[in-house]
């Protein structure tokens, strides 16, 4: 069995220079769908659904400007910004983890994924604090259309975060099985890419939600 893209025997322990060249070869490969191709049906479907959510938010913003101006003023922008920075950093950790795994640095990759999962948990905690603040102030999903859409859209996003954290925990377990110093098998890379793509989806959806909920006045 040969390592994909190199023609080198899998039993030969590759040097780090070989691994780096392997990464470059994979990176330079044309028309490579990241992760499982079928996963993109879910990813693009999710993007379309959230696109509709964003349009619904924009429509209600256009038809009820006073309510949405009032709702925007109730938002804790510091927590929103903190959550954005947390998710951006966790995305960077996942991208680093993938690149390190491709280099055969399984231990460092595992640490990167652990950092990403910890940051995901931080997001959940910060969101719970924010929900608690709104509920303590008497705002709930049944109060008015602003808070209904706020809780529904951010709640569905939060569900994605929890699913993503679970997937990252599986990746951390998977990294234990990778052979240190050797580039992972093609199937392992596809799995890592798939989880990465999902986690970055969670990040980019939050970036738009942050714009709509916390930045627009």
């Amino acid at each position, binding site marked *: 069995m040969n390592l994909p893209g190199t023609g080198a025997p899998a039993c030969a322990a590759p040097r780090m220079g070989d691994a780096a060249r392997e*990464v470059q070869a994979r990176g330079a490969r044309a028309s*490579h769908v*990241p992760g499982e191709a079928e996963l993109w049906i879910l990813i693009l479907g999710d993007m379309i659904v959230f696109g509709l959510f964003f349009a619904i938010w924009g429509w209600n913003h256009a038809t009820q400007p006073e309510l949405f101006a009032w709702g925007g003023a109730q938002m804790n922008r510091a927590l929103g910004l903190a959550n954005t920075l947390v998710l951006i950093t966790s995305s960077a950790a996942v991208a680093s983890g993938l690149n390190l795994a491709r280099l055969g640095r399984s231990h460092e990759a595992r640490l990167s994924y652990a950092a990403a999962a910890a940051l995901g948990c931080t997001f959940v905690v910060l969101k719970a604090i924010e929900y608690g603040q709104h509920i303590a102030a008497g705002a709930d999903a049944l109060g008015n259309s602003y808070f209904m859409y706020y809780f529904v859209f951010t709640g569905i996003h939060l569900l994605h975060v929890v699913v993503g954290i679970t997937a990252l925990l599986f990746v951390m377990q998977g990294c234990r099985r990778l052979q240190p110093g050797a580039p992972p098998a093609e199937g392992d890379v596809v799995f890592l890419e798939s989880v990465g793509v999902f986690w970055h989806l969670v990040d980019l959806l939050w970036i738009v939600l942050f714009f709509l909920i916390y930045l627009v006045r």
Partner: protein
Amino acid sequence: MTDRIRSHWHALLPVFAVWTVLVAITQVSVLESARPASAYVLVAIAGLTALKVALVIFSYMEVSRAPLWLKAACVAWITIALGTVTVLMVFPQWSVALVNQGVSPLLAAHDNTSAEDDK
């Protein structure tokens, strides 16, 4: 050891560079949103948001190396999703009037059909 450091550097530098740009754009967006509300500010923040989303998709998701159909789908999503929201927020009355103009004939047709069914 040098080779190892070099390979780490090559693998992690682009990730760190994108992270730095994403954090910088986020800070600029927050500063922009603190200015008095105007159409210019809204369009500027929407543009910065689109830039961040594009960076995540094309860099972290590695869509820049994906087939053309996937790149096109992602660009279409960014344009339609953020474009729709921005138009709705910058031109609310125009957007509502436009939608009502399109929906009114449909509602009228529906009412006529319902009335005929009742007969």
